[in-house]
């Protein structure tokens, strides 16, 4: 009976001109979105490669220079584009692609793709994640809103009941007929994405496991929608009402609740403004050691301590350049300040994420979105991770430069120039995002919420059976 109902429903769906047109539109949009994303992905990665290579060449070919001048001259850490960002671009567009690494300052990522776009960008982009997160649930609604109501409206329900229909098998047939086209579309999309990604050269390591996990997350998301739409269709008497209720659910789940969650989270745990943040950092910096100012009280105290430690009465008698030593200490102090303030931002982010995750109970969109971005390495957590790695690299770079200055120049000798080949000894910045296992364990709660939605939505089907 399940098989018969499945084939009957499928025939009805595919003979319905509206459904055929909708399916064709979705398929075309999906192909276009994948094509656009693949092109963007290739462009950005080529730019990344060019920028990375040229910036490193500039660093390597500075010539003879004072290490501290080189520290101020700085370099860039570029955020790599990950293969699965082709499927889900997440916050990449807004989070910035590169961080300028220089002495004394922890800079934020800049040059976001969004900042390069015109106001038309407010209309949004046609991306695979848009299709997967927004359009596919709409397609589920279109295919399934009248799944049960049509039996009332056409009057076939009485004949079905008189034939001794088994509720479960009937529901299972309708469920399969609604889910299978969605599953086929999703599978095709992911296979195409997988083939494109695995055939692109020089774009990092593509992980089929990650793609599979992403596919599973979206499959669960669609199962939840299929269950909800069937429930709505079963509980309403007219197709029109069913459509309105289903669309309302879509608006709430995919648009209203995520935006409300964002507002609630930001209201509950706001970030400081850029000015406040800069002022707080500056205030703390002033209270500590300034590596450039040898006359400050902190610098004087440091000098006294170092002289006492080495049993000498002049910085000239120290076995290293005290200027470089002081600058390094100043660098360490500043790094601590930045750590403290950025840590506060991170804590706010974690608290906001908790609010988000709490509100995910009201919308299957939220846990799906979080999981998808996390697996694609396009979420804020990955961005923070990249920013931390860049900051660690900056600190290590300053240490590397100060050490050279400290060991090779006499105190007060600012005319020292490091060898032209010295710069090449600095290891290049390389960033690896968290592994899939770590991403999944970090997002365990999202997986849990998604699982609860899945179980809950299947439980709703029990109510259909009672019809």
């Amino acid at each position: 009976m399940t098989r018969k109902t499945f084939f009957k429903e499928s025939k009805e769906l595919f003979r319905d001109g509206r459904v055929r047109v909708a399916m064709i539109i979705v398929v075309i949009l999906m192909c276009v979105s994948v094509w656009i994303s693949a092109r963007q992905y290739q462009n950005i990665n080529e730019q990344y490669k060019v920028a990375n290579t040229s910036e490193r060449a500039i660093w390597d070919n500075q010539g003879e220079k004072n290490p501290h001048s080189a520290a101020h001259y700085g370099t860039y850490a570029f955020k790599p584009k990950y293969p699965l960002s082709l499927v889900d671009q997440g916050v990449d567009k807004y989070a910035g692609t590169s961080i300028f690494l220089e002495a004394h300052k922890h800079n934020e990522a800049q040059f976001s793709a969004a900042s390069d776009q015109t106001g038309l960008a407010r209309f949004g982009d046609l991306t695979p994640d848009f299709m997967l997160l927004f359009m596919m649930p709409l397609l589920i609604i279109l295919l399934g809103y009248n799944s049960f109501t049509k039996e009332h409206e056409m009057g076939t329900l009485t004949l079905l009941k008189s034939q001794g229909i088994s509720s479960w098998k009937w529901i299972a047939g309708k469920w399969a007929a609604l889910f299978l086209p969605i599953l086929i579309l999703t599978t095709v999309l992911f296979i195409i994405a997988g083939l494109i990604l695995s055939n692109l050269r020089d774009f990092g390591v593509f992980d089929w496991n990650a793609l599979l996990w992403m596919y599973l997350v979206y499959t669960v998301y669609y199962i939840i929608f299929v269950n909800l739409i069937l429930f709505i269709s079963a509980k309403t008497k007219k197709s029109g009402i069913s459509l309105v209720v289903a669309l309302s659910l879509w608006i709430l789940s995919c648009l209203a609740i995520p935006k409300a969650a964002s507002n609630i989270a930001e209201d509950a745990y706001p970030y400081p403004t850029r000015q406040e943040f800069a002022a707080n950092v500056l205030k703390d910096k002033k209270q500590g050691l300034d590596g450039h100012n040898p006359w400050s009280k902190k610098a004087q105290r440091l000098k006294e301590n170092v002289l006492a430690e080495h049993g000498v009465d002049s910085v000239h008698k120290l076995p290293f350049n005290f200027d470089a030593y002081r600058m390094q200490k100043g660098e360490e102090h500043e790094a601590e300040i930045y750590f403290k303030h950025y840590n506060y931002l991170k804590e706010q982010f974690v608290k906001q994420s908790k609010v988000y995750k709490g509100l995910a109970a009201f919308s299957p969109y939220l846990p799906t979105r979080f999981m998808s971005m996390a697996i694609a390495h396009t979420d804020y957590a990955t961005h923070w991770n990249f920013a931390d790695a860049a900051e660690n690299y900056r600190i290590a770079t300053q240490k590397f430069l100060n050490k050279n200055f400290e060991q090779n120049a006499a105190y007060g000798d600012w005319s020292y120039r490091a060898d032209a080949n010295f710069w090449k000894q600095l290891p290049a910045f390389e960033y690896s995002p968290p592994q899939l296992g770590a991403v999944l364990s970090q997002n365990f709660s999202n997986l849990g919420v998604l699982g609860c939605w899945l179980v809950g939505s299947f439980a709703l089907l029990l109510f259909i059976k009672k019809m």
Partner: protein
Amino acid sequence: MITTQNLTKKYNDQTALDQLNLNVNKGEIYCLLGANGAGKTTTINLLLGFIEPTSGSALINDLNVSQKAKETKKILAYIPENLMLYPSLTAIENLDYFSGIAGKKLTKENVISFLKEAGLQENAFEKRITAFSKGMRQKVGIAIALAKDAKVLLLDEPTSGLDPKASNEFGQLLHKLSQKGVATLMATHDLFRAKEVATHIGIMKDGQLKEECIARDISLRDLEQTYLSTMNYKEVEL
């Protein structure tokens, strides 16, 4: 095959069916006549198990419908006043689906033979139901009953809206089924068709079975007079 024992259905204070006792044996066609609201459709719905009786019992092949809903549905077929099928499916596909729902596995040849037996013209087999007239849909309904190998047929005003030819063909089909031993209970307003096809006729009013007769023992004229007097209608003189 079809038995009701003091079958009663009440909606709040309203009695839709009051202590109905009737019996339809194998091969009999029992026509229930009555005005709208007489309780004919309620009787059929109770026999189908769509609604629960307030008291009494409805039996199909000695099985209580309320207690053995699945078992009774295996042996009965139902054709409502407006048999609605899936418009985007063909006659063959509809028959195949509804038979499948009833647990029957049919080959395409089987399906075609049932449609032929039901009198549907062959050029309509592969056509979608959306283009079918009511008479054609009723024939598909009969084919569904044939495919199900139903022992009991419940019909709720199946000839209303049919043209005389289609109505006559439908009557002939009922005769065929009757000869195969199918017990039929048909609710109808159509006295002429009832006289034509029925073996037994009952007249209902206000949820009660007021009159019962054997169809061959009564003329159409007498049936009409009995009906009108039961309903307390005055005969209109022409």
